[in-house]
């Protein structure tokens, strides 16, 4: 079964955020992991928060060392920050999480990307 995490950008600051227990957190390692279609209610709840987040969508992840690592490279960049600026973004705040994501193997096409582009 596919594992998924719900992500979005914060409306106020554009920051990448992840859904965890009904709130939004900054780091993917703290995010709720949904199996199969279990993320659908969370996505619906997120879409009902238009003054909190923009363009919520589910991404595929593969758990690695306790971190739900995005399968698609694009989502890894979102979860980390710019690869050319390791001093910026989430990678600068949580080095362990970043190291797990950077070293995780395997990738597949991003989920939700087409809808995301339409929205942005």
């Amino acid at each position, binding site marked *: 079964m596919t594992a998924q995490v719900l992500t979005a*950008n914060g*409306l*106020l*600051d*554009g*920051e*990448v955020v992840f859904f965890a227990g009904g709130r939004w957190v900054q780091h993917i390692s703290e995010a709720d992991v949904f199996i199969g279609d279990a993320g659908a209610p969370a996505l619906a709840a997120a879409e009902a928060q*238009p*003054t909190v987040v*923009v*363009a919520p969508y589910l991404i595929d992840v593969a758990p690695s060392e306790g971190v739900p690592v995005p*399968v*698609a*490279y*694009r989502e890894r*960049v*979102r979860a980390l*920050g*710019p*690869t*050319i*600026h390791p001093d*910026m*973004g989430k990678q600068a705040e949580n080095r362990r999480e970043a190291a797990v994501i950077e070293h995780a193997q395997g*990738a*597949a*096409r*991003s989920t939700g990307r087409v809808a*995301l*582009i339409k*929205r*942005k």
Partner: protein
Amino acid sequence: MPSAIYQYDAIDSAMLADRVAEFRGQVARRLAGELTEDQFKPLRLMNGLYLQLHAYMLRVAIPYGTLRSPQLRRLADVARRYDRGYGHFTTRQNIQFHWIKLKDAPDILEALAADDLHAIQTSGNCIRNVTADPYAGATADEVDDPRVWSEAIRQWSTFHPEFSYLPRKFKIAVTAAPKDRTAARAHDIGLQLRRNREGELGFEVMVGGGQGRQPFLAPTIREHLPVRHLLSYLQAVLRTYNRHGRRDNIHKARIKVLVAQLGAEEFARQVEAEWAATDKAAVDLPDTELARIRGAFRIHPFEPRRGPSPAFETAKAADPAFARFVRNNVLAHKVPGYAIVNVSLKAPGETPGDCSADQMDAVADLADAHSFGEVRVTYQQNLVLPHVPLDDVPAVFAGLQAIGLATANIDLASDIIACPGLDYCSLANARAINIAQDIAGRFALPERAEAVGELKIKISGCINACGHHHLGHIGILGVDKKGEEFYQLSLGGSGEEDASLARILGPALSGPGVVDAVERLVDAYMGRRLDGERFLDTYRRLGAEPFKEAVYADAHPA
């Protein structure tokens, strides 16, 4: 120091103030939930505000690539106060800030407006910020100052009610020199100023160029348009486009598709018919207004000096690094005793086009001290100090060295154009900056880069081609293969007066693979070039085969 370039009048300033107030209200309504994201998105885009991977991005217009030193300091202030201490100069002479918060955007626009800066015409399906020759007013080979006409287009097109909702975005470039430094044929409209046999000033009008998914070079639809009719003719082109452009399919909506489908001759016929029916006097710029704009671009109080500059010549003889800088970054000025100094934003290991706030402030100081307070931005993502006395070039070089901006690599292999790519952009398929950095690293030795000579490498992170890969001597396009980054090589492009579109060489390569491939291409060129041949010339003479062989003989394509 009195400005010698156009400054906004009371009407311009009031317009900007109104615009900021309007956007402040729109942001407040969005935050309060009175506007949905779908309603708000086109409003924020009209103010240059995109939502990218990590944050909002604000694109600020630098009309025709010309900045006064206080404007550059204002950009530095925005970078420092609202971003992370840097900005990114783009391939359309704009600047982007990549870490903007929505709640700050109205304050930023208000701060920018204090120095005649704004984000109008940097997004949306309107006539975008006009590109012009960055050496305007400084180069000896121009027949007129293209900024005068660019400013006229800016005033005419800003908030033009008929052309604010075109089928798609619309980009215009203006150049007045035979050496094209604007990529004119890659624009929706390219305007080349020249004199006819009678000595009259006119525009060659090229329409229907563009890159992206379907690249085209703009064909010429009129060889000589009398300059006084510029605006009425532009209106005729845009009306023809507005009437027939495809609004049903975003991939076919640009004017290049319309021109290609109709054919240049038929498109030109329709434009001429529209123009013939136009009340030209109602649209064209009155002579008085043209004179007012031209008067704003005053000639600086240059002090021409014949003969060599001892300070310049002594420094060149004494310092090989300065001599290299002069060879690669310094060009002749139209006034004897002055020079055009290019400032490379492509230092080894740095992001192409990125400039820190401290660097911006320092360049503004250098401009005040040595270049009449003027700075230019190039579509190659570099800066220019356009009016430097030869005596002052050593001091400018030392000043640039002190801030890490003295890299002597203009038009060399390490002077790479790269879009922000997947490190920032929500549309990208692959990263571009890291590839640029790795390739530049292979040519970091100045001796090697100079031995290779002119080589324009251009990298885009997706098919939208912001990195101009279609126009690269070596073009690199990032593609997504099952979620992983791969890179497609193209060769033989040029955005200059010898414009051509690059052709795909072969299957896509991995990131490290494409960096190795560029070295192989260069080796193949070095082994085959004739005297004086650039990479592009050798490719055009020999075709793709020897280069294909060099890259794919034992590579492992995807």
